[in-house]
C-alpha cells in the first residue's frame, strides 16, 4: 500500500470539495455586495427586508432559483442545452484549484499552475457558445457568438500581459511567484503596464461591465442565457460571480503580492497562524477588487462590440507585446533573471 498516494488523493478530494462548497457563499456574498453597493450609488436603500439589514437577500434569491420551473424550448438541442451551464460553472470551479489562498492553502500547488489557470478559465467560452447555439433563439445565438469573439480575442492580451511577470520571476507557479514578490516587492512596481492590460482584459474575459457585451440586456435580452430558467440559469449566474472572484484573486496574486501583508511584519509567521494571516490578506485584497468591479458596474455604460474588439487588437495586444519586449531586454541587459 502506498500511503503517500492515498493521503494525497484524500487531500485532493477534500480540497476540491471545499472549493466547490466555497463557490456558493462566494457567489452569494458578491451578489449581495452588488445589490447593496449599486443601490447606494443610485441613492436607493437596496435589500433591507430579509434578515438584519437584508443580508440574506441573495441567499433567498438562490433558493428561489432552485424552486423555479426548469424549462427547455421545444426546438432546443436538449443534451447540449443541459450541459452548457455545467461547462461554464466547471470552468470557473476548476480554475479555483490553483488559487493561492495562503501558504499551505492551495488545493494543487504545482510548477505550471499559471499555465493551467489560463487554460481552464478559457473553457467557459465553450459553454457560452454551446448555450447560445442549443437554445434555438436568435438573441442567444448572437450572444453566444459575441462571447466566442470577445473571450477568444481577450485571452491573447490577457495571457501576454503576464508573460513579462513570468520572465521576470522565472517561474510559472503561483506560490513561487508570490515568494518572489516577498523578496523583491510586488510586481505592481515592476510591471505596471502589464497590470493595466491584465485588469482590462480580465474584465472582458469574465464579461463584466463595461464589457458585458454577452448579456447586454438592452440589446440581446440576456444573450446566451435568454432561454434558461431555474437552476440552469442559476449556474450561469453563479459562474459569473465566481469568475469575478477568481479574476480578482488571480490579479492580486500576480501583481499585488497575493497573501502577503503590505508590510513585511510578521515575516516569520509560520504554520497555521501564517495560513490564517495569509487568508485574511488574500480575501481583503480580493474583495477590494471585487468592489471596484461592482462600482464600475454602477457607473459605466457598456462599450459597443466593435469598439471592444478594436481595443483588444489595436491597443492591448501591441501594448502587451511592447511590454514583454521591454521586460525581456531589461532582464538580459540588467541581468535580472530570478534577480
Amino acid at each position, binding site marked *: 500500500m502506498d500511503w503517500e498516494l492515498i493521503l494525497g488523493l484524500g487531500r485532493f478530494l477534500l480540497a476540491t470539495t471545499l472549493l466547490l462548497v466555497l463557490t456558493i457563499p462566494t457567489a452569494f456574498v458578491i451578489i449581495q455586495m452588488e445589490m447593496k453597493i*449599486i443601490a447606494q*450609488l*443610485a*441613492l*436607493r436603500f437596496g435589500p433591507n427586508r430579509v434578515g438584519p439589514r437584508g443580508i440574506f437577500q441573495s441567499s433567498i434569491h438562490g433558493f428561489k432559483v432552485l424552486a423555479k420551473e426548469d424549462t427547455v424550448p421545444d426546438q432546443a438541442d436538449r443534451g447540449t442545452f443541459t450541459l452548457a451551464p455545467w461547462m461554464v460553472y466547471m470552468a470557473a470551479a476548476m480554475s479555483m484549484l490553483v488559487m493561492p489562498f495562503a501558504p499551505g492553502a492551495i488545493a494543487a500547488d504545482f510548477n505550471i499552475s499559471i499555465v493551467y489557470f489560463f487554460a481552464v478559465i478559457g473553457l467557459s467560452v465553450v459553454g457560452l457558445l454551446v448555450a447560445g447555439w442549443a437554445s434555438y433563439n*436568435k*438573441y442567444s445565438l*448572437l450572444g453566444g457568438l*459575441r462571447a466566442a469573439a470577445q473571450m477568444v480575442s481577450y485571452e491573447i492580451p490577457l495571457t501576454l500581459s503576464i508573460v513579462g511577470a513570468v520572465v521576470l520571476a522565472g517561474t510559472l507557479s503561483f506560490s513561487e511567484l508570490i515568494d518572489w514578490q516577498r523578496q523583491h516587492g510586488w510586481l505592481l512596481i515592476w510591471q505596471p503596464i502589464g497590470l493595466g492590460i491584465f485588469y482590462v482584459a480580465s474584465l472582458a474575459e469574465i464579461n463584466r*461591465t*463595461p464589457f*458585458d*457585451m454577452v448579456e*447586454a*440586456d*438592452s*440589446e*440581446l*435580452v440576456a444573450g446566451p442565457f435568454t432561454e434558461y430558467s431555474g437552476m440552469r440559469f442559476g449556474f450561469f449566474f453563479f459562474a459569473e460571480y465566481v469568475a469575478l472572484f477568481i479574476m480578482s484573486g488571480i490579479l492580486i496574486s500576480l501583481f499585488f503580492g497575493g497573501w502577503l501583508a503590505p508590510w513585511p511584519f510578521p515575516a516569520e509567521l509560520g504554520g497555521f497562524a501564517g495560513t490564517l494571516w495569509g487568508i485574511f490578506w488574500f480575501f481583503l485584497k480580493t474583495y477590494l477588487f471585487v468592489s471596484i468591479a461592482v462600482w464600475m*458596474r*454602477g*457607473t*459605466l*455604460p*457598456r*462599450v*459597443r*462590440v*466593435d*469598439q471592444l474588439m478594436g481595443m483588444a487588437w489595436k491597443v492591448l495586444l501591441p501594448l502587451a507585446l511592447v511590454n514583454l519586449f521591454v521586460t525581456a531586454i531589461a532582464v538580459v541587459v540588467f541581468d535580472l533573471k530570478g534577480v
Partner: protein
Amino acid sequence: MTKTDPEVRIPDPIDLDRAEEDRLRAAAGLAPVRPERPEYAGFEQVGIPDRPPETAREMEVYSLAEGEMLLNMGPQHPSTHGVMRLLVKIRGEVIVDIDPVLGYLHRGIEKLCENATYTTVLTYVDPMDYLSTMHNEHAPAIAFEKLYGVRAPKRAEYIRALVVELNRIFSHGLMMGFLALDMGGLTPILYSFINRDEIVDMLSAISGQRMLFNFFRVGGVNFDVNDEFISRLGTWRSHVLENIEMNEWMITENEIFTARTKGMGTLTGQEAISLGVTGPNLRASGVPFDVRKAHPYSIYPELELEVITQESGDSYARYLQRIAEIKQSIHLIDQIVDKMPHGPVQAQVPGIIRPKPGRAYGAVESPRGLYSVYAISDGGPNPYRFRMRDPSFISLQAMPKVMPGRLVADTMAVMASFDPVMGGVDK
C-alpha cells in the same frame, strides 16, 4: 355546400367589396385603389409574416439575401420603450434594414374622444403620451377654446405654462436616464427618477393625481396653486440644477457614452424637415423651429425664450439639446413665477358645451415635438372629428433612415435618443 368542404372557398366580404370597387373604378377609367400584391415567393422560408407582404416596402424588408437574418426586437423586449416591435434585418451584427411595426398599444383614443363630450375629452387624452400628460391636455384645451370662443383667464394661462414646463423638465430628464440605460448605465435613470418624483409630487399637490393629471379644463385649469405646491416648487428649485448637473456629470463627459453617441444616428436638418421630425430632435439637427416661438400660444409671447439648436444632429446632439432645454425650462419657470397675476383660474363654461359648427387647430410644443389637435364640431356635444398629431410617431420614422450600416447594439441607443413614447405613437 358544407362548411367543411375544403375545395369551396367562401370569399372574404372585404375582398368582394374591393373587387366591386375596382370594377367600378375601372369602368370609370381610374386605377384600382389598392395596387396588386407584389409577386413574392420567399415568405415560406422566412416564416414571418404568416401572409404575403402587402406593400413593396414590406417585401423589401422580408426578402432576405444570403447571410441575412430577421430579428424581431419586441414587442416583448427589455428596452423598446413600451410595446414596439422593431423588425431588424441583420447581416452578422450589422443592420441592413429596420422596420418599426406599430399598433401593439393602440387603444382607439381618437374614437373614444369623438364619443365623449368636449369637457371629458381632456381626460381621455391623458394616457396617450404618458410622459407628457400636461401637454396632451394643453393642445385639445386650446383647440376647444378656439372652437367655443372662450379664453382662459390670465392666471390660468400662467398656471398652465408652469405645469407644462415642469412636465417638460421631467420628461427630458427621463430621456437622459433612458439613453444611458439603453447603453447599460444603470444609475443615471434613478437620478432622473429622483427629479421626476419631486416634480410629480408637486403636480399631484396641485392636480390630485400622480401620472394622468387631468388638470386642464376648457377655459381654465382645475385648481389654483396651493401652499403645498408652492413650497415643493421652492424646495425643488433650490436644488434642481445640482441634481441635473450630478446626472450630467455621470454621462456627458463619459468616454464610453460619447464614443457610442457621437456620429450615431445622424439626421441632417433637411432630412429631418422632409420626414416631419419636430421638437428637440429637429432642433438638434440645427433647425430653429419651436412652436412656442414660431406659432406662439398661451403666454409664451410674454416670456423671454430663445430657440436653442445644436449643429451635428447625432444622438449626442439630441442629448445635449435635452439638457439645454431643461435649463431653459427652469429659466421659464422663474419668469412665470415672477409674473403670475392674481385672478380666477376658470372661465364661465357650462358642463356640456355645444360649439357652433366649425374647425379648430391647437398646437403645442411637447417634449417630443409639435403635438397638435384638429377638432371639427358639428354643433353637437361631442367632437365630430378629433385628430391628434403625435410627434413620437414621426420621430420614429427616422429610424429606417439612420440605422442601416450600424450595429445591433446601436438600435436601442439611437432609438432612445429620439425619445419616442409608444403610448403616443399608437394612440
